[in-house]
């Protein structure tokens, strides 16, 4: 807005501190904001069920296993998107099939699949790096890059996001019943095993997408952080989904903003990772939501959703 004075340290006026000049006219920022928002929306919806069903570990693992999809895709020369999607579906299914009926044993089954698949991705990464040309693969696959989303990927992301939301809407009621009480759902004639598998596949696709876009570190945080926060603020699942999506989008937007600003921060001049900012915001939001309500009250509390910006 004003004429330039030295913005070097980033400690200029408040406005300039938040919005570096050129933030709103940068093409990569637009794409990052758009895809980031879409991912945040879907993650919020799926995340509420993930937290309700106590499947955070599976959600986290699926994101980790994006490495498998990414490295496999590099090796076979297909687009990373398809590698991620295929890995998400396959591994999500495997995790569900490997677990027994008891919820307690699910963690172990998830862990076994996670370990095995991480081993396989280690092999694929090794083959990637030894077959030449792709030195940065490990790093890109692990940490993702919100700023490297091309037009084609953005469209495909949108399509898969819609698909995920649609399947969630179709299964909404039985899924909710099953999340609250599996026995009750089974008694009502819901095919819980099939439903669980379907949910894992949807979660696999969602997480795969988001880990492609925002990286395997940020992706589970975006799935679980906003949802866990929202479920502490409101009891209604739909309201929680809305809150979670809003929180996720807000945190992503702010994170991208801060990362853009951080290009002038110390100690190195090439920016701090976006994922760190988003995760830190989500973590703070979760902590703040814990202060809000001492577990007993049931009233909805919509106003606090934005406290996180403070």
């Amino acid at each position: 807005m004003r004429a330039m004075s030295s913005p070097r340290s980033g400690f200029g006026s408040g406005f300039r501190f938040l919005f570096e000049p050129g933030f709103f006219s940068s093409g990569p920022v637009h794409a990052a904001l758009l895809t980031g928002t879409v991912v945040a929306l879907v993650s919020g919806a799926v995340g509420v069920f993930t937290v309700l069903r106590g499947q955070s570990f599976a959600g986290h693992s699926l994101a980790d296993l994006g490495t498998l999809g990414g490295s496999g895709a590099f090796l076979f020369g297909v687009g990373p998107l398809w590698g991620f999607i295929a890995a998400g579906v396959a591994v999500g299914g495997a995790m569900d099939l490997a677990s027994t009926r008891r919820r307690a044993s699910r963690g172990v089954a998830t862990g076994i699949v996670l370990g095995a698949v991480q081993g396989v991705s280690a092999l694929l990464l090794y083959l990637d790096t030894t077959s030449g040309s792709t030195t940065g693969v490990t790093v890109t696959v692990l940490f993702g890059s919100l700023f490297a989303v091309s037009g084609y990927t953005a469209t495909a992301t949108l399509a898969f996001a819609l698909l995920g939301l649609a399947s969630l809407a179709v299964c909404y009621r039985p899924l909710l019943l099953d999340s609250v009480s599996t026995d009750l759902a089974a008694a009502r004639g819901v095919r819980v095993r099939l439903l669980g598998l379907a949910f894992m596949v949807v979660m696999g696709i969602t997480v795969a997408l988001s880990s492609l876009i925002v990286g395997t570190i940020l992706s589970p945080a975006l799935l679980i952080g906003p949802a866990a926060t929202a479920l502490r603020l409101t009891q209604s699942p739909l309201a929680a989904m809305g809150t979670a999506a809003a929180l996720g989008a807000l945190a992503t937007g702010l994170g991208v903003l801060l990362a853009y600003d951080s290009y002038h921060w110390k100690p190195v001049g090439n920016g701090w990772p976006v994922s760190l900012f988003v995760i830190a915001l989500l973590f703070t939001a979760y902590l703040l939501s814990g202060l809000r309500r001492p577990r007993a009250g049931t009233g909805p509390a919509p106003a606090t959703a934005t406290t996180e910006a403070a």
Partner: protein
Amino acid sequence: MFAPFMQDTWITAGIVAVIAALVGFFVVLRAAAFTAHAVPNAAFAGAAGAGLVGVSSLVGLGVFSLGGALLIGLLSRKGRHDAVTALTVALMLGLGALFLSWSTEYAPEIYSLLFGEVLGLSSQDVTTTAILGFACVAVLACVYRPLMLSSTLPEVAEARGIRQVRIDLLFLTLVALATTTAVPVVGALLMFTLMIGPPAAARALTRHPAPALTLGVLLALATVWIAIAASYQTDWPIGFFVGVISAAWYLLARAAAAVFRR
């Protein structure tokens, strides 16, 4: 394969396998697989940070794995355990990404911390691992009875005056200690696999603690030693072999249990 320079590798990996199996028995018993996954990942971030500050990476590993474990323990008093764990591990990895973006050493370092570098150990590593491993076993021996009681019969433990919260923190500390021992040697991913696969397989076969512990240790030893041999022969990453063999034990054990329990 059995050349003198490989000796340290065989010994160190053996120590790590024993520790992982012993602690892993309780991980499986307490259904704490996510914790076992989270702590080594947090440790990985610590090692990345230690390089920046200029302290030994072992210190970074220790501080971050303990910090991560205690954060999980404290936060999960008031929230869903698994969601809290997911958030904590994300935060730690985010910090790791930050540290890595600051540091000058890049891909190969990350790679070895995640996937391990078993085939290049020195005798100094053996000593460190042995000391830390001994500490692990000592701590485990001290808390064995209360830990076992609270893992299997939480209500009885509570009635006997064993505070669940305290035991939980103690258990997390133990996982952190085991992680610090193992991660510099076998890497974060491998440590997790060793803590889950062999103990879960052993537990699928027997419900009694002593045989399950012994079997877990034996399976873990077999896993790492087969993996080292195979990795030495093929030059493929050791993490691949450990991951696949561990999963194979579990599948075999589940199948065997299903056949014999009929």
